[in-house]
């Protein structure tokens, strides 16, 4: 079943396209990596798919209700301000806000969902620690927990292993591949690290020169 269907899509900033004529299908349960040189438009494509960028031309169709089952969005952690006095649990709790209307407060149920999400990324014991005091790898896993707390159909990660050491990279990729393999969660991930995709990703989307083409993992190694 097709979760996201892009047809002749152009994406960019203002009226200036960065990517043009992108035609792509993302099937339920797949693990797809977006690869390509710096500045090629990987993040632009990801942002377009989750609706953060308007589609300049073409269409994007979704095979699921984006509002009742939103994207599990994991941004680059540098984008988030560490001055906020938030614990890991409070950050993960924000994922549950997807299903809470105004005037509805996050209660015990939502806290349990957030705690369970932290446990599923191996951080159940650090729920009360300040988010800003965590290591880069831990922060990234808290953001994955936040995305899981939204109970998503599709998990979308923007360079989750950027700026973290090899051990943390392995831990993050282990969590993401397990979510795909054991829970059937569809994954779309931006990365520069091709090697770690072997045996994990079903395919890659190679982004370069304003185009995005789907390839086998072996083709880009």
């Amino acid at each position, binding site marked *: 079943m097709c979760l996201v269907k892009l047809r002749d899509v152009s994406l960019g900033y203002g009226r200036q396209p960065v990517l043009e004529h992108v035609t792509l299908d993302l099937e339920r349960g797949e693990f797809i990596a977006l690869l390509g040189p710096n500045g090629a438009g990987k993040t632009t494509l990801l942002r377009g798919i989750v609706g953060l960028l308007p589609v300049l031309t073409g269409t994007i169709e979704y095979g699921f209700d*984006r509002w009742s089952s*939103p994207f599990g*969005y994991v941004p680059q952690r540098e984008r988030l301000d560490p*001055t906020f006095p938030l614990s890991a649990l409070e950050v993960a709790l924000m994922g549950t*806000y*997807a299903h809470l209307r105004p005037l509805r407060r996050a209660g015990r149920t939502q806290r349990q969902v957030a705690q369970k999400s932290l446990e599923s990324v191996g951080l159940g014991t650090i729920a009360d620690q*300040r988010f800003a005091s965590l290591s880069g790898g831990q922060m990234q896993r808290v953001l994955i927990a936040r995305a899981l707390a939204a109970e998503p159909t599709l998990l979308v990660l923007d360079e989750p292993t950027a700026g973290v050491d090899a051990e943390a990279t392995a831990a993050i990729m282990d969590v993401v591949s397990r979510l795909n393999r054991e829970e059937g969660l569809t994954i779309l991930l931006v990365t520069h690290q091709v090697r770690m995709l072997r045996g994990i990703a079903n395919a890659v989307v190679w982004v370069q020169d304003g185009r995005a083409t789907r390839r086998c993992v072996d083709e880009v190694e």
Partner: protein
Amino acid sequence: MSTLGEILHPGFLLRDAVAASVLVGAVCPLVGVYFILRRMIFLGVALPQLSAAGIAFAFLLNRFIAGPHLPGHTNVPALARLGAFVFTLGGILVLAAFERRGREVVEARIGVTYAIAGAFTILFVAADPWGDAQMVNLLKGDLLATTGGSLGLLAAVLGGVVLTLILFQKEFLLVSFDRELALVFGKAAGLWDTVLYLLCGVTISFGVMTAGPLVTFGFLVAPPLTARLLTRHMVSFSVVSAIVGGVTAFIGFYCAYRYDLPLGPAEVATTTALLVLVGAGSGLRRILQRRPA
């Protein structure tokens, strides 16, 4: 009777001024929390100044329409509030629209806004000599002139601000911490930003009308900075900010009354003194923790 007993006595002559001080002191930090977290502290300087320019402009406009001001004119406070609110809200919406277009450019714009607002406040005052004295009092913030009526209005408006901040805390937190996530979730991020700015505009304009730009800026910034050193969670950050603001405003009032000091500066000095003390204590604790046993 002790000074404290005198101030706390129900029949105290300046009872309304005490209440207004504590109200402004407690509520300004609640919106100031978002200024700190969104790294928009300079807005806390520029907006009270813009609010003052609004008051001066409203007076000038009134002079052209209705003629010179007369002492005791009943429409004066309403006019000043309207001017303060329109200028503050206009300024905050325009500056906020540029918030995400590069930090350096935003800071430059806020600086320019402050300079322009300061200059035009003086020019508007100079162009309206009839309203001069009354306006200078309003611009300085005449806490001691608080009446039962103006206190009631202040309490109602700031009470509404606090209630809205509590009711929509999760929305304000989400758009402040991760606006993109709010958009991905289909939340009306623009609407929540606007509501938050509206609350800031209302609080600042009433704060300036009651206590002046100096006190308003001081309490927007100093109590949240103090609370940030003492708290680890968002809710306690807001609550402690309000408590620090309210308590230091009261202590400031006590000092001003006891030692015959100007009220506004005494309150700001008190709240910033606490910030320095807590900052020093926090720094000392960090140094001691780093020292090898």
